[in-house]
């Protein structure tokens, strides 16, 4: 199918701790490149969906599907594409890795911006129209600022997920293609191959520092700056602060440095730039309906065509037996995800509530929980695997917790946030009526943190599906552990370069994720919203 991948200078990975700063920098640059790509995608894709009814009909369901495809599932296919785009150059794999991180970030950012576009208050809409702002001015002065808080929050969530995939996508091995891009991920991969536990330790230290620096230099200032985009007209109780932003505001020389950039940006944002003159047309209902019918017909034809191509691609290789195997593995992974969510909830909800109700403690624990959520858990896998191998534990059971190692923290920090936001008058009322014990949990606290918990559990469950691809089949030097399950199935097929079966595994996983979202999480979320609203 493809010629073996040969690049003239395959970069050599070294295990010396001295190269780690350089590797960390390269890893970070990949993250940033993906972030820029995600932003561009968000502003175009979500805007198209938000502005055109017909585009919306296609783009939003498509986004839903994109979101449920496991991130590493994309990688197997896009590597081929990017490598063939730049044959013999390291640029191909670099772009593939960046694209993988992009797929971990872009979808929820686009969703959040689309939601913002749909919920612009009507008085702001009328203001922009009555002052005759051009589409360009409206976009930068009203739509982007209005969507900013949600966008920043989702970017942060995306970035925490992104570290996981940046590590996983640097050492790419698809069939005959074996590439290691210089970075922390490749460093760890090599350490695993050479069974060097000390090197794994160094990588963990380097990653920790990188995430902390990223947080202090990028996200803290961003969050503090974005506070002004909150739409509520009331003053916030807690104003987010950043020492970097304060430094910038208070230092004249720094401010002067930023000024010309500000002026240029300001005039770009405020210039009229109208690409197309808005023509004023009133369509008759019948013409609109005819257009819709033509549009649906075009969509149907495209769908049938794609379906036929897929069958053509898969039919010669896949038999019914393959479906049965993939579905069976899917069932196993589904059971694991469910059990893990239940176990993690039983552990972290009580702890989260206990922490969240003590503001002093919450202040200290919350950043740690957020850091743990961002930390790529796959860096810790070698240690766990080392333990499993050492004590010869059964992989089917003992590999399972790895899936939720990195994502359980979402439950913790969302529950902490929920408990901190719990109205103190309700707590006092419960205390004064001496509501205690199980009744206190069932009638006071659990309903109070429920919406937050659901948000955290959704993220944790999505992350666990993604993690299954790297956690159900692991190795330590020459030892390979296979816990079976859909993730292991996909990983195995990827190693073998068996594209139809990779596609099958990815498709089964997407269907399971979509089904779980539709049948479990969305109804729960709607219920939480309805139940806990007071107005």
């Amino acid at each position, binding site marked *: 199918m493809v010629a073996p991948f040969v690049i003239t200078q395959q970069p050599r990975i070294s295990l010396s701790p001295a190269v780690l700063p350089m590797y960390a920098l390269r890893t970070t640059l990949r993250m940033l490149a993906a972030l820029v790509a995600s932003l561009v995608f968000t502003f175009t894709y979500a805007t198209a969906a938000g502005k055109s009814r017909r585009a919306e009909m296609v783009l939003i369901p498509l986004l839903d599907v994109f979101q449920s495809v496991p991130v590493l599932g994309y990688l197997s296919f896009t590597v081929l594409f990017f490598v063939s785009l730049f044959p013999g150059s390291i640029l191909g794999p670099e772009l593939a890795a960046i694209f993988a991180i992009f797929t971990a970030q872009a979808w929820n950012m686009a969703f959040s911006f689309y939601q913002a576009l749909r919920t612009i208050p009507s*008085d702001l809409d009328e*203001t922009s*129209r009555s002052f*005759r702002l051009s589409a360009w001015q409206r976009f930068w002065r009203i739509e982007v600022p209005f969507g900013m808080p949600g966008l920043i929050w989702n970017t942060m969530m995306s970035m925490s997920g992104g570290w996981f995939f940046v590590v996983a996508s640097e050492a790419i091995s698809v069939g005959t293609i074996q590439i290691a891009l210089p970075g922390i991920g490749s460093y760890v991969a090599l350490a695993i191959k050479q069974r060097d536990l000390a090197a794994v330790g160094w990588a963990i230290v380097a990653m920790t520092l990188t995430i902390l620096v990223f947080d202090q230099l990028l996200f803290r200032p961003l969050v503090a700056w974005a506070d*002004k985009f909150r739409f509520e007209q009331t003053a916030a109780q807690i104003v987010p602060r950043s020492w970097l932003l304060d430094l910038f505001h208070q230092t004249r020389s720094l401010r002067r440095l930023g000024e010309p950039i500000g002026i240029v940006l300001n005039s770009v944002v405020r210039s*009229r730039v109208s690409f197309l003159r808005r023509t004023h047309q009133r369509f008759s209902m019948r013409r609109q309906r005819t257009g819709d019918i033509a549009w649906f017909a075009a969509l149907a034809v495209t769908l049938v065509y794609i379906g036929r191509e897929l069958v053509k691609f898969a039919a010669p290789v896949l038999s019914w037996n393959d479906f049965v195997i993939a579905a069976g593995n899917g069932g196993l992974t589904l059971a694991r995800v469910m059990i893990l969510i239940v176990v993690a909830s039983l552990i972290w909800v009580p702890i989260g509530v206990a922490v969240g109700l003590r503001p002093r403690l919450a202040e200290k624990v919350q950043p740690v929980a957020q850091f743990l959520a961002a930390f790529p858990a796959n860096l810790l896998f070698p240690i766990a695997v080392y333990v499993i191998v050492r004590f010869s534990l059964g992989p089917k059971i003992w590999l399972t917790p790895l899936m939720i190692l990195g994502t359980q923290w979402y439950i913790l920090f969302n529950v902490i946030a929920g408990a901190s936001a719990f109205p103190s008058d309700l707590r006092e009322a419960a205390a004064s009526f001496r509501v205690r014990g199980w009744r206190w949990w069932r009638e006071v606290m659990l309903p109070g943190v429920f919406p937050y918990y659901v948000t955290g559990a959704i993220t944790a469950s999505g992350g666990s599906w993604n993690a299954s691809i790297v956690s159900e089949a692991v190795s330590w030097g020459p030892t390979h552990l296979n816990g079976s399950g859909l993730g292991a199935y996909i990983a195995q097929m990827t190693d073998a370069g068996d594209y139809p079966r990779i596609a099958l595994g990815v498709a089964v996983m997407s269907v399971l994720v979509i089904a779980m979202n539709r049948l479990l999480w969305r109804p729960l979320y709607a219920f939480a919203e309805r139940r806990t609203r007071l107005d």
Partner: protein
Amino acid sequence: MLADEKNAAYEKNATHEKNVVLEMRKVCKAFERPSGGPLLALADINLCLREGEILGLLGRSGSGKSTLLRIAGGLMEPTSGDVLYRGKQLTRPEEGIAVVFQTFALLPWLTVIENVELGLDALGLPREEARRRAMSAIDLIGLDGFQSAYPRELSGGMRQRVGFARAIVVQPTLLLMDEPFSALDVLTAETLRTDFLDLWIEHQLPTKSVLLVTHNIEEAVSMCDRILVLSSNPGRIAAEIPLPLAHPRNRLDPEFHDLVDEFYSILTSRAAESIKAQSQIHGGLVQALPPVGLHLMSAVMDAVAGPPNDGQADLADLARLPDLAAKDLFAVAEALHILEFAELKDGAVKLTAAGRVFAQCEAEERKRLFKEHLLRFVPFAAHIRHVLDEREGQSAPRVRFESELEDHLSESDAEKTLLTVIAWGRYGEIFAYNDQTRMFSIDHV
């Protein structure tokens, strides 16, 4: 081509009155209902706004006055009829028309001066020129010193000043004001009104005419040169009344007082007529109910029954009571009229015999009396009860009644009416409603 000819014809027509800023001819506006079929919000509106005048649009909520203002601003298109701005067809927001919003509609991420400059962005002015004009608008409206503050740091009154400055900075010929003072407390509103009138009278504003939408009678009488009274369902111009009083107007002036009373009686007779008309159409089943709670109704009945009113009181006087100020008294009076606890006539509320009894008796008795009147005079409440009685399991989904209401009312009116029926029905204990399951049922306790 056709449109041009039409335009030319209108321009010819309009030349006899050169100082006309805005004209509407036979304007109708219909909205599409979810169930299909149009719902008429405005019918046959003819109006003419001339240079140098403040024209008031007075009407109850739901009379379509905000819709009318949006049509005047080019933000909405009429379903039929013509809107002419300076003799030309108006099809979209034009330079020279500016809007002041009830909710202020400021961008929280821009400072005061940036918000004011927003109005100038569309004009493509050079930076310095824009800044200069924004500063002078800010000075004029009394915001100097606050230019670098963010809206959330300002009080409501100051925020609306920003709203005014942003509208004035574009030097509009026509200023449209959509209940600009109704989100402010009484004192702040009064100050801002007076400040605006001072600027207007001293010709410090570039504006030639103002269209003011309001439901506050005293506000309309204190500001406007002419008032159009809108009736509801659909909105029509029910009366046009010129106000020849000289500015500044004194609220204690007997002439002012008489005018306010006159408007109350026009609006009350309108309200009584429209209630009567509504109970005659749609087989009397569906009528829009004002969103009024039991406590407010009881409070008004108590006030009317007690001294010095003795069973009858002018709405204008009730509006001055501290407890009832700023509440929509018309809605309460209308609710009492519908339930036949009071009669609405000539700007006054007069309690019926049942209303007097209600005011005198205790909680249990009040409930019984209310239940009786609810079943007798609100056909829709009786209808719900009847359906529940007929049904097996004595319950019915909310959707069922919702769709019945939506056949005759706009979506928002239907929603409000249903919520009112639920509140009244719960108080009168004629049915129960569970919002979790969205089911009506009969509660046997």
